[in-house]
């Protein structure tokens, strides 16, 4: 297994951040499901339920990744990793893979809640499972952009923040439309979603790798 992935998994499972994220997701989903059940309308709490999941997958988890990258950069660990033979590209890819694993771990926590909501009645299981899958798969896209942000200078960070403010809601909209759209309308957003996800990840990771070289590791490739 790749070293960064092993390190990130080991570290994160013991980190306070991951405990907080886990408890936040667990408690919020329990509360939302309980409220939906008590008013006999799980469907009425769908938006709250998925906002809790999406904010965890697309904001809290990527934020933990950039925090970890930021600490590594401050402590000079990137240089040691580079001398050990891990290239900037591998470093970026492996961090994003680690983020995907974290997201999968939390997705396995969300899954029983989705099934429970189905048994309580009023939701479309297929659409909700599709949305959970798309949210999980899109975590690396958002994570890559976050990582790109941490590896740039001040102006770069500002520009990427603006990019995130405008494009993240749009991307989230396409993700929702891809999962919950019906008939012919479901096909078009899904194609856009696939295209944006692949291109977005590639561009963000390329810039993040370049950023690791330029801003964290001086100039020797």
């Amino acid at each position, binding site marked *: *297994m*790749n*070293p960064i992935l*092993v*390190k990130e998994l*080991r*570290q*994160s499972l*013991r*980190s306070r951040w991951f405990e907080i994220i886990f408890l936040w997701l667990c408690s919020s989903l329990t509360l939302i499901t309980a409220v939906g059940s008590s008013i006999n309308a799980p469907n009425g709490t769908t938006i709250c339920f998925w906002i809790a999941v999406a904010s965890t997958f697309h904001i809290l988890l990527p934020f933990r990744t950039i925090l970890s990258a930021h*600490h*590594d950069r401050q*402590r*000079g*660990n990137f*240089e*040691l*990793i*580079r*001398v*050990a*033979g*891990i290239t900037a590209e591998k470093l970026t890819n492996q961090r994003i893979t680690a983020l995907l694993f974290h997201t999968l771990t939390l997705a396995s926590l969300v899954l029983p809640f989705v099934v429970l909501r189905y048994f309580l009645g009023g939701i479309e299981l297929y659409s909700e499972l599709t949305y959970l899958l798309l949210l999980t798969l899109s975590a690396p896209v958002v994570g890559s952009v976050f990582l790109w942000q941490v590896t740039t200078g001040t102006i770069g960070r500002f520009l990427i923040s603006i990019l995130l403010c405008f494009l993240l809601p749009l991307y989230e909209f396409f993700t929702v439309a891809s999962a919950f759209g019906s008939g012919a309308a479901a096909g078009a957003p899904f194609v856009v979603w696939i295209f944006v996800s692949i291109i977005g990840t590639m561009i963000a990771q390329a810039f993040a790798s370049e950023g690791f070289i330029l801003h964290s*590791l*001086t*100039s*020797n*490739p």
Partner: protein
Amino acid sequence: MSAPEPIVEVRDLDRRFAQVHAVKGISFDILPGQVVGFIGANGAGKTTTMRMMATLERPSGGSIRIAGHHVVREPAAVRQVIGWMPDNYGTYANMNVFEYLDFFARAYGLRSAQRRARVEEILDFADLTPLADRPINKLSKGMGQRLCFGRMLLPDPQFLILDEPAAGLDPKARIEFKNLVRILAQQGKTLFISSHILSELGEMCDTLLFIDSGKIVYHGAAEQLRRGNQTTPNGLASTVQIIDISLTGDPASLLDWLSLRPGIKLLDKRRDGARLELSAGDDEALAILLKQMITDGLPLTEFHRVERKLEDAFVDMVRGLQTPPPLPGLNLPS
């Protein structure tokens, strides 16, 4: 028998930053198995030079070859033969000593059983086996340095670059560190160590390299420097021996004897002896001087060469370089 090929060849190495010319065209070689001390004041260019050797900084000019590989053109090959220990070792939260070494062993490409065996070997070597489960952010400075030392040795590198490894260590940790260096030197590793603690470097290293304002001002044996090599403002070395003698009876006999020998300077006079400076004195000149003193009937009880502290040698050298040479044709008042 032909001389061994140098493991490190530095040629006209230059590094400029925006406002600072940190390294100014330095050149030197390091032979396999040598333990080289790299000495210089803060900002002299030590860390920049070491970082360029460790493939972490691109030179502005010149070249560095390590084990035949060019650091800019073949950084991956260079990284396989070097070990790098920066002045601040990296720490990770939520990770213990074993996991830290295991992570770097994976990064170096060591596989399962081989990796575990190597990590255990390193833990044993650095005396960290009892601390294997301790979180690394709970280690003392000395333990952390040993861990960093161990990390550097994971891929069994030929050439080790250590930037200020003894900084901030307590006396016990320093002794442990010196022992580790001694063991590695015995194993035939080549070490390049920078430090401010010159006396310690003198004990550990067989060769010293002094850098000042980005230029190499001395490259030679520590022993030679202690015995009295001094550097003139133009960078040339001249040999001066300091001798301490003790004698019984009236010291006036010594003064009379010295008055007949202009090549020997009286530095310090005591009731029971004196300190003398012998210019251009090699070992043979010392032997002749001793023989002459005895032949001339001086009642000697002690005769020994005074070794200079490396700190003094370094300060003299830098001071000598800062003294501008007189302008040609200008008669200075005496």
